Structure formats: C-alpha cells, structure tokens
C-alpha cells in the first residue's frame, strides 16, 4: 500500500504543484492518476521513489516513510517506467532490461537470462534482445521500458504515461497485454495518464487531480462515472459517462425471455441467424453471453433493427433474448436501487 499523508509540493520559484494530497493506493491494485496537464501527476508519482522530495507531508510504502530510506536502494525496489521510455541508447535492449538486476548484484549471465524471459513476456521476440533502442519503433521501446521496470520483480511499479508515444491501435494492444500481465503479477501500481479513457480502462482505482495539484476525487472507475464529486469531475470523465459506466456492470442478471417469444428472430439449429424485417432478412450483427457487460447488451439492442439483443450460451446456441423496453426498465430499477 502506498500512502500519501497530507503531501504538499511547492517548487522553488514555481506555484504549488501538489496541494495537501492524501490518498491510499491499495496493494496489488493499479491506481491511475489522471488530470489535465500540469496538475501535478508526475510530481506526485515521483515523490513515491524520492525523485522529488515533498515540501511537507509524508509518503509511505507499506507504512514505511520513504524519506527515511536510502534513495538508491528504495528506487531499485520500485519499478519505474518514465514518459517516452528513457531507454539507455548505448546499451542493447537486453542490457537495458538487465539494469536493475545487475545493480542488485546479480551476475551479468543471471540478469540476462531473466531479462530474455521478460522480453517475451512483454511481447517482444527474442531477436530484439541484441538491438539498440534506436533500432526500435516507439511501441517496441515502450515495451522495453515496461520490461526494464519489471526486471527485478519489484512489488511496486510507477508508470508515467507509459503508453503515450504510440498510435491508438498499438496503445489498445499494449493495454490488453498489460492488463493480462498485471492479472498474473498483481503489482501495486501507480500510473499517470492524462487520458481519462485509459484511466477508466486500466485502473482498479482512479485519482482525478485538478489544476493546482488538488485531489478532486478518488474511487473506482465506476464510482467516478456514476457519482462524480463535482462539476469538474463530471466534465472530465465526459458526457457519455452513463453509457460508459455500463461497461462495469455484468449482463448476467439482465431479464431475458425465451427466443420463441420473438417472431422476428430466425434460428437454425438453435443458433441465431438473421432478423426478419419488412425489407427482408438482415444478418445478426452480434450476440452476448452472461460474461459480457451491460454496455454490450445496450449496444446490441439499440443497433438491432427490431430492438432486441440476443444472448447465446457457450456453444453459440441462443438461450434468451432481451427486448429493449425490458432493458430500459431494468436499467431504471438498477439506478433507483
């Protein structure tokens, strides 16, 4: 657990970068710090590994005040992914990743062997090991940056806009890979981004900071979407927050009726095939399962020509349909409760 206790940072000659920040980043979870440019995200992050010293207040890791600890040793125990990767240009990819294990006293061989495994883990073919950073694309560099931070298997990771320098397609891919990785590793992660969508997608918790380094709200993504603390948070999370909040709700309990209750649905061996409409049959664009989110169900219902979302079981056999007015009633009830 990382604890901020009434932390203030005032840069000499600058304004207040972080203003009386208190929050707890839970162990094994990913907390995303998000907010407009200059609101103190990077400053807050860097106070965790003492790259920045607070003007007042304390930062603790598992109850231990970081300010009492040896800087270098503290940092070796915390993975750090900096904005734009910051790879060492004079070292090969493999030696970049091996940096911290070697600082910790591992032999070059041991460090390299472990690093090679990590490269695969972050989705880089091992033939990249011998290359230099200048020979990699932006997305590949970011992967190496993540691998380097993971190399000594630190319990805590700090990530400063680790996915910013890549195009949206690669970013989405990195997100998916990273979520899978985090599921295995269960690190305590503090990540910075200015992209609220990224925060909501990746974070177990999200801390929204406002200009002047004030914490506007701390909570799960769904809490922020459902109950923004104020006008600033509401506008920051975006106008479609109601719809986006549905992506955190399970479709398991959505009310279904038997497939036979719709005359418009054409089945073949139990599998949904097409919609019967006035202008002829239309192929079914998509179906959902119990494991999907309510957002998927809503999307299917409003994009179907007859206003029906089709549920299938694991074998692709239709086991129920959701009519859009039933869905609306269901959503209304949930909102009320």
């Amino acid at each position, binding site marked *: 657990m990382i604890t901020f206790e009434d932390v203030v940072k005032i840069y000499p000659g600058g304004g207040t970068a972080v203003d009386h920040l208190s929050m707890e980043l839970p162990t094994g979870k990913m907390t995303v710090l998000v907010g407009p440019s200059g609101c103190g995200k990077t400053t807050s992050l860097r106070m965790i*590994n003492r*790259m920045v010293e607070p003007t007042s207040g304390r930062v603790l890791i598992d109850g231990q005040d970081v300010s009492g600890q040896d*800087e*270098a*040793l*503290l*940092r*070796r*125990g915390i993975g*750090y992914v*900096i*904005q*734009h990767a*910051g*790879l*060492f*240009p*004079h*070292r*090969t990819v493999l030696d970049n990743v091996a*940096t*911290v294990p070697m*600082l910790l006293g591992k032999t070059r061989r041991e460090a390299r062997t472990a690093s090679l495994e990590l490269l695969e883990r972050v989705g880089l073919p091992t033939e990249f090991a011998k*290359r*230099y*950073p*200048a*020979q990699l694309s932006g997305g590949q560099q970011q992967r190496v940056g993540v691998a*380097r931070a993971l190399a000594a298997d630190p319990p805590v990771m700090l990530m400063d806009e680790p996915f910013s320098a890549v195009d949206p397609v690669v970013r989405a891919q990195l997100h998916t890979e990273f979520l899978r990785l985090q599921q295995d590793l269960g690190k305590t992660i503090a990540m910075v981004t200015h992209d609220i969508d990224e925060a909501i997608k990746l974070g177990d918790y999200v801390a929204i900071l406002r200009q002047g380094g004030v914490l506007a709200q701390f909570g799960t993504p769904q809490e922020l979407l459902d109950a923004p603390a104020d006008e600033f948070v509401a506008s920051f999370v975006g106008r479609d927050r109601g719809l986006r909040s549905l992506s955190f709700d399970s479709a398991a309990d959505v009310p279904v009726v038997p497939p036979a209750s719709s005359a418009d649905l054409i089945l073949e061996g139990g599998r949904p095939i097409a919609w019967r409409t006035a202008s002829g049959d239309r192929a079914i664009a998509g179906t959902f399962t119990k494991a999907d989110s309510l957002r998927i169900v809503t999307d299917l219902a409003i994009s179907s020509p007859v206003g029906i979302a089709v549920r299938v079981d694991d074998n692709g056999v239709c086991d129920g349909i959701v009519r859009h007015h039933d869905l609306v009633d269901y959503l209304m009830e949930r909102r009320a409760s």
Partner: protein
Amino acid sequence: MNLSYLFDPANWDPSAAGGFPQLLLSHLWYVFLALLIGTVIALPIGLYIGHTGKGSFIAINAGNAGRSLPTLGLLMLMVTLLGLGLLPVLIALTVLVIPPILTSAYAGMRTLDRRVVDAAKGMGMRPWQVLTRVELPMALPVMMGGFRSAALQVVATATVAAAVGLGGLGRLLIDGLAVNDYSRVLAGAIVVAVLAVVLDLFLALVQRWVVSPGVSGRF
C-alpha cells in the same frame, strides 16, 4: 621539391641521435605527456561543470581563451620564469590541449538527453554509477571529438620544443632553417603532417571501438 633528406636511409637509422625514429619518439613523448596531463586536469573540470551546470562560463571562455593564446609566446615566458627544460614545454603544450578537452567534456555532458539520466537515477543508480555507466558512454562521441582536435593541435605545436633546445620533430625545422637545409625542413614538415594524420586515424579507430553502436548509429 627536394626529398633527399626524407629518403636518406641514414636518417632512418634508429640509433642515430638526430634521425627520424628518435625525433619521432621524443615528439610523441611530449604529445603523450601533454595530452595525459591536460586530460587529467581538464576532463574532471569539464565533466563537473557539465554535470552540475555550475560555472559554465569557465567552460565557454576557456575555449576562446585557449585558441587565442600563442603557444610560442607562452613557452618563452615560461622559459624566462623557469629556465630551460621539459617543464616549460609541457606547461605550454598542456595549456594548449586543456581548452578543447574541457569544452568538449562540458558540451558532451550538457547535450545529454536528461530524460535518460533521469531514468538512470530512477532505476536506483548512485551518482557515480550514473556518471560512469550512463553519462560518460553517452557523451563519449563529443568528448572524443575534443580529444582528437587536442591531439592534432599538440602534434603540430610540439615542434616548439626544439626552439628551446629540446628534441622532437621540430629539430628538423629549426636546425634545417639554421643551416639553410630546406630538404630537411621539408622532411620535418612532412613527417609531422603524416604523424598527425596517422594519430587521428588511430584515435578514430579507438573511438569506434569505445563508443557504443547505439550511440554512434553504426549498428
């Protein structure tokens, strides 16, 4: 052009006191000493100024001052103060090599990508490790550039040693002029020029060997 002195085998006899091998050797010895002392003095200062940003005016002005100082004049002054010997020559030559080495060490450190240095600290490197494992390897091409230009200058200028009675390839120039033996003067000039080119080629090879391909771009 009269190349008879240059190609006279007697002048290439390693045991001949005024022959090319011995003059070359003493010449290289002055060059080596001046570069060594100059580096020992200028490199730490340049690195310190570049690393901390404190006193950068020294680094910038050293370059200009060094270029405008006449080595021969300085040598005569030193001889007047200290008498004849190796010391005044070394002082004059060292003063010559300090500016390029200091300025390039400073520039090498200043032009580093600070984000990479920041990453090094963030990984838990101690200041000394940051300097030796990250800053120096990255600044090496610029620093080698300064060292090479210092070496070139001092190879040419070490000929002044002969003006105050010492050896080195300058002997050929001074003695040749004294007896109007232009073939000897020409030989001296050619050997100095060839030495400069060979030395620079050698240093270029060293540079290639010590600078990481990731920095030089020669993958």
